[in-house]
C-alpha cells in the first residue's frame, strides 16, 4: 500500500442549486444501471418476451410473401395487430417484463446484499428511486418499442405499396405513434407499481399475481376503483378498437367509461407519480438487515 496523498481534503462541495445535482445524479444512476444490466443474461427473457411478436409477424412475411394482398386483408391485419398490442404486448409481455425488471431494481440488490453501497453514497434515497426507476423504464421501453416498430413494419411491409400508403399517407404512422406512447406509459405505470411492491413485499411474485388479477377485474368495478389500475388509462388511448366477441377477449378488452386521451395520459402519469412518491417514502424507511431479507 502506498502512502498516497494527504488524506484530509475538503469534500466535494456542490455550489449550484440542489435540483441540478439531483438531475446529474439521476443521469449517472441511469447510465450506470444501463451499463451494468442492459445486456446481461438476466435480461435475456425480457428480450424474449418483447421479440416473440416479431416471429409472429415475420413468419407470415416469409411464408405468404407471394400471396395477393388487398385492402380487406390489410384491415384484418390491422385489427389483429391491435389485438396483439392489447393482449400480448401490454397485458402480458410488458406486464411481466416490468415485473422482472422493476422488482429486481431494489429487491435484487437486497438479495445480492449490495443495497448498502448506493445507500452509503451522498445521494438522497428519493433520487436513487427515481434514477433506478428511469433506468428500468429505459430498458423496458427501448426493448419493447424496438419490437413494436419491428412488428409494425413487418406487418405492413408485407402489403407492399398498399401497406406503404396505409402507413405514410393513411392513419398508420399516427397509430404507430400512439402504440409507442402506450408502451412508454404502460412501462411507467407498471414499473412504478412493481417498484413499489418490491419495497413492501419480500417475495413480489404473489402480489404481482394479485396485481394481474386486479388489472383484469377493474373494468367491472366502480369508476373510482378503475382509476387505480394501469389498464384503465391505457384503454382510452388505443387507436384501433378490438371486437370483444369472446369471453376471454371481452374480459381483457372490456370498454370503460369514456375519457379523453389527454386526461388518460395525465391520469396515468399522475398515478405513476403517486406510486413513486409512495416508493420514495418506503425507501427512506428501508433498513439494511440482510439477515431477515
Amino acid at each position, binding site marked *: *500500500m*502506498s502512502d498516497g496523498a494527504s*488524506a*484530509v481534503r475538503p*469534500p466535494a462541495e456542490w455550489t449550484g442549486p440542489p435540483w441540478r445535482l439531483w438531475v446529474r445524479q439521476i443521469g449517472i444512476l441511469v447510465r450506470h444501471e444501463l451499463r451494468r444490466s442492459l445486456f446481461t443474461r438476466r435480461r435475456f427473457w425480457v428480450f424474449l418476451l418483447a421479440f416473440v411478436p416479431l416471429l409472429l409477424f415475420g413468419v407470415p412475411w416469409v411464408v405468404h410473401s407471394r400471396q395477393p394482398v388487398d385492402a380487406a386483408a390489410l384491415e384484418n391485419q390491422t385489427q389483429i395487430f391491435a389485438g396483439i398490442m392489447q393482449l400480448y404486448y401490454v397485458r402480458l409481455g410488458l406486464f411481466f417484463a416490468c415485473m422482472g425488471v422493476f422488482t429486481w431494481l431494489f429487491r435484487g440488490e437486497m438479495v445480492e446484499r*449490495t443495497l*448498502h453501497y448506493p*445507500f452509503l453514497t451522498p445521494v438522497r434515497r428519493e433520487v436513487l428511486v427515481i434514477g433506478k426507476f428511469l433506468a428500468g423504464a429505459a430498458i423496458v421501453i427501448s426493448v419493447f418499442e424496438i419490437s413494436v416498430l419491428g412488428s409494425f413494419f413487418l406487418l405492413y411491409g408485407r402489403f407492399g405499396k398498399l401497406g406503404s400508403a396505409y402507413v405514410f399517407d393513411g392513419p398508420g404512422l399516427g397509430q404507430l405513434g400512439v402504440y409507442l406512447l402506450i408502451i412508454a406509459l404502460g412501462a411507467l405505470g407498471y414499473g412504478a407499481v412493481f417498484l413499489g411492491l418490491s419495497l413492501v413485499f419480500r417475495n413480489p411474485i404473489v402480489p404481482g399475481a394479485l396485481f394481474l388479477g386486479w388489472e383484469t377485474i377493474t373494468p367491472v368495478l366502480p369508476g373510482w376503483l378503475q382509476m387505480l389500475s394501469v389498464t384503465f388509462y391505457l384503454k382510452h388511448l388505443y387507436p384501433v378498437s378490438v371486437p370483444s366477441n369472446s369471453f376471454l377477449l371481452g374480459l381483457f378488452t372490456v370498454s370503460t367509461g369514456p375519457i379523453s386521451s389527454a386526461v388518460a395520459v395525465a391520469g396515468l402519469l399522475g398515478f405513476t407519480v403517486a406510486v413513486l412518491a409512495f416508493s420514495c417514502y418506503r425507501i427512506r*424507511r428501508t433498513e439494511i438487515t440482510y439477515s431477515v431479507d
Partner: protein
Amino acid sequence: MTPAADRVVFENVSKFYGEILGVNRVSFSLEPGITALVGPNGSGKTTLMNLMTGLIRPTHGRVTVRGLSPGDPQEFFRHVGYCTQFDSFPHGVTGYDFIYWPLRLAGFSGAEANRFSEEALDRVGLREAGMRRVAGYSKGMRQRVRLGQAIAHHPSVLVLDEPLNGLDPMARAESLALFQELGSQGLHLIISSHILEEVDRISDRVILISNGFIVAEGRIHEVRREVQDQPMQILVRCSNARGLAAEAFSLGDVVEAKLQKDGGGLLVRTTNAEKFYLLLNRAVTAGLVEIDTVAPADDDVNSLYQYLIGSDGNLT
C-alpha cells in the same frame, strides 16, 4: 464550531430487531482520533456502526456525526466513509468501477473521480488489479477494495467494520499504518476488530460492548484506571529487581511481585499504582535500583477486554 460539530454523538440510542435487542441505551461522544470498538461476536458492534451510518435507524435516541444526521445522506456521506463487513459486490464490477461510480454520484467530475479512484486503489495496493473484476479477487483484495471505496472521497469520519479480516500479515501491517496516518491527520476512525493486539497499538480510545450494552468507553488508560477491582500490572526493567520486590511488598497495596526469568525485571500487581510510582522514585533516589524502563503491562484493549468482558465473551 460547537462541541458536537466535531464529534460522533450517540444520545440514549437503542435498537431492537422486533423483540431482539441490538444495542440498549447507548450514549457517548467521540472526539477525533482512533477509537477501537471491541466486543465478542453478536455483542452489537456492527449494529452500532450501522446506526452510525444510517443503514439502520434507532428505535429510540438520536445519532449525529459531526453534527450531521444520517437521515440526510446527501450531506452526511460527503464526510463519512463506511467499510462494511458485507463481503458482496455488484455483479460483474471491476475494482476501479467499484470506486469510480460512487465518486461520480458524489458530484465529482469524471476526471476527478478517475484521479481519486486511482489514488484510492494505490493507497490500498490494488493499482495493478484495479481493472480486474472483483469476483476474481482474493478475500484480502476484496477487503482492501472496500476500504479503498470508503476512503476514496477523503472523508473526515471513517467507520471500519473488521477491516483487518482476511488480510495477510503484510497487508494488515500496511492497513494499520494507513489507519494510523489517517488518525494523525485529525480524522475520526472508528474500528471494530477482534484482533485486539493490533487495534490496541493504534487506538486512542476504546468502546467495550457486550450483549448490546456499553461496558466501558473512553481513553484506554482512563478506562483501565477505573477498573479498580483488577490490580494494575506494572513492568519494571531494572537492576536489583529482587531488592525492589522486597520494598514493594512493604506497601500494603502490592498484591503480587513477580521476578522475570532473567532477573532483570519485575512485574508488579498493585491496587494503587500512584503509591508504587512514588516508591519507585524513592528507590531510585536512594540508589537502591537503576531503572531501564517502567511501563503499564495491562493498560491495553486486550486486558480491558479480559477484565470487563472475559475471554468467553460474557460480562465479568
